[in-house]
């Protein structure tokens, strides 16, 4: 779409885009180029000289057990976060869409975890689940479960999944609710007249019509699990015990800043960029055919 009415000026448009372009060049393109460049170099231990090594950093990464392990952890983590986050919020949204009275009160209560920062979420959950003083850990012990995320890698993964899902429910809920409300009531009514009960209507009409929203949220949740959960992990498990909860983003930070292995960290950044690009392309492809029914 283009505007018919335009203004003419030789310099003004450049002045208008300049601030954003300068920021973009300085803090996005230049660093990204640096990451690309560093990813094909190996620095010596003192950082004085570096050597061009083609794709050796990448080869090293894919031969590195811990990196592949981190890939696997990230995959399991994001599948769990996306699956649990989407299912719980879909259930809540379906019921919230049903009721007339009090719906807005429930909505207010359900959406505000969106505003809680990931580090706060992490500390909250760690406090409740702490094996020594956590309220929930104690309740679990009462039921015979010895909860200890500091020693048990499975528990640690469950902890970060719970914290990440808790924060993301509000976002998914809002989008599911909006999606449900945009389904024409006449369709549902027609099915009801034909004798389809609520459960059947949900699986044959509502859920299929909701699929664009679900797919969109799936991408968003995977991106969230990949990139926005750094602070949750940093506040709760710090990648441990061992490396059981070390997802890719956490590993980049760890190797680059704490370990000082710039070449490897840069190669990891490049791999992450590739993942984001793929996810963004998927998302945009989908956006084009998004609206099927409104």
């Amino acid at each position, binding site marked *: 779409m283009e505007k018919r009415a335009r203004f003419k000026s030789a310099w003004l448009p450049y002045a208008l885009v300049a601030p954003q372009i300068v920021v973009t060049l300085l803090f996005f393109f230049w660093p990204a180029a640096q990451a690309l460049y560093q990813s094909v170099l190996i620095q010596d231990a003192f950082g004085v000289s570096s050597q061009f090594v083609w794709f050796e950093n990448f080869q090293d990464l894919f031969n590195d057990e811990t990196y592949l392990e981190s890939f696997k952890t990230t995959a399991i983590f994001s599948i769990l976060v996306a699956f649990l986050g989407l299912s719980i919020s879909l259930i809540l949204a379906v*019921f919230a869409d049903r009721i007339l009275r009090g719906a807005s009160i429930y909505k207010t209560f359900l959406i505000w975890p969106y505003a809680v920062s990931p580090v706060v979420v992490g500390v909250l959950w760690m406090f409740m689940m702490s094996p020594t003083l956590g309220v929930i850990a104690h309740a679990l012990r009462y039921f015979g479960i010895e909860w200890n995320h500091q020693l048990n890698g499975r528990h640690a993964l469950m902890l970060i999944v719970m914290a990440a899902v808790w924060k993301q429910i509000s976002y998914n809920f809002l989008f599911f609710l909006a999606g449900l409300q945009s389904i024409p009531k006449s369709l549902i009514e027609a099915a009801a007249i034909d004798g389809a009960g609520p459960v059947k209507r949900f699986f044959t009409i509502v859920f299929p019509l909701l699929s664009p929203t679900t797919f969109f949220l799936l991408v968003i949740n995977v991106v969230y699990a990949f990139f926005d959960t750094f602070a949750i992990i940093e506040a709760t498990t710090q990648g441990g015990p061992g490396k059981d909860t070390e997802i890719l983003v956490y590993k980049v930070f760890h190797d680059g800043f704490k370990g000082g292995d710039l070449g490897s960290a840069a190669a990891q950044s490049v791999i992450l960029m590739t993942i*984001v690009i793929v996810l963004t392309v998927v998302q945009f492809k989908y956006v084009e055919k998004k609206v099927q029914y409104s």
Partner: protein
Amino acid sequence: MIERRPILDLISHLVLLLGVLVVAFPVYVALVASTQTADQAAAAPMSLVPGDQFLVNYAEVITKGTSGNISMPPVGRMMWVSFVSALLIAFGKISISMLSAFAFVYFRFPGRSLFFWMIFVTLMLPVEVRITPTYQVVSDLRMLNSYAGLTIPLIASATATFLFRQFFLIVPDELAEAARIDGAGPLRFFKDVLWPLSRTNVLALFVIMFIYGWNQYLWPLLIATEQNMYPVGIGIKTMIAGGDAAVEWNMVMATLILAMLPPGLIVVVMQRWFVKGLVDSEK
């Protein structure tokens, strides 16, 4: 409502109540712990009945920071840093995106699509994937430990630019034509016509961007190395660094409650704009 099913209605309310409980429980625990004494909050398990230390604890964290053996600035100071950064990020994102969207929609100029694509690509470069080199740039520019360093690298925004572009495109052409006939230049048109029309969009985006800015963690972790530039999120992490025994959980929880208050209030009070901003910025 399609048909009357009282039992299903009951189940709906029960499920939603359960959802609200799950969402609210962690915050309730934090709130209770923040009103207890250090010993009470560190009891195993702590009591779920509020204590009587509310005023004492909050007054202490806001003005003095936590006691114990960890040195850190008062929470009041850290909240201020978070607040200023969040405001700067929100204002920065909105202003530079509005200006560039205005240029993209109302002007034809060589390089237009190149610039547009450059901004689009930033979507694919989240800060997490370019941490090390971006940190290098900021440190070369001597912007560590400054508001500029905490905010400017985060203010480029493809989503906000698209949103304003989308919005400007549906503004009727007649308005710009009328403005031109009346002899108004582009800047005048922007100020007197586009800006008033965009106010709802600006407000909606502001809510989202403020929360985004307030909740930054990884970036300030690198940029704020001096304690007086710590935003509250980093402060919380510092407070719990001592390990289970050394941590004063009542103070930590008071800080958590304070840290979630500003963005939480904004979401609840400005719910309409928040929802609009959230939905719009993902289109």
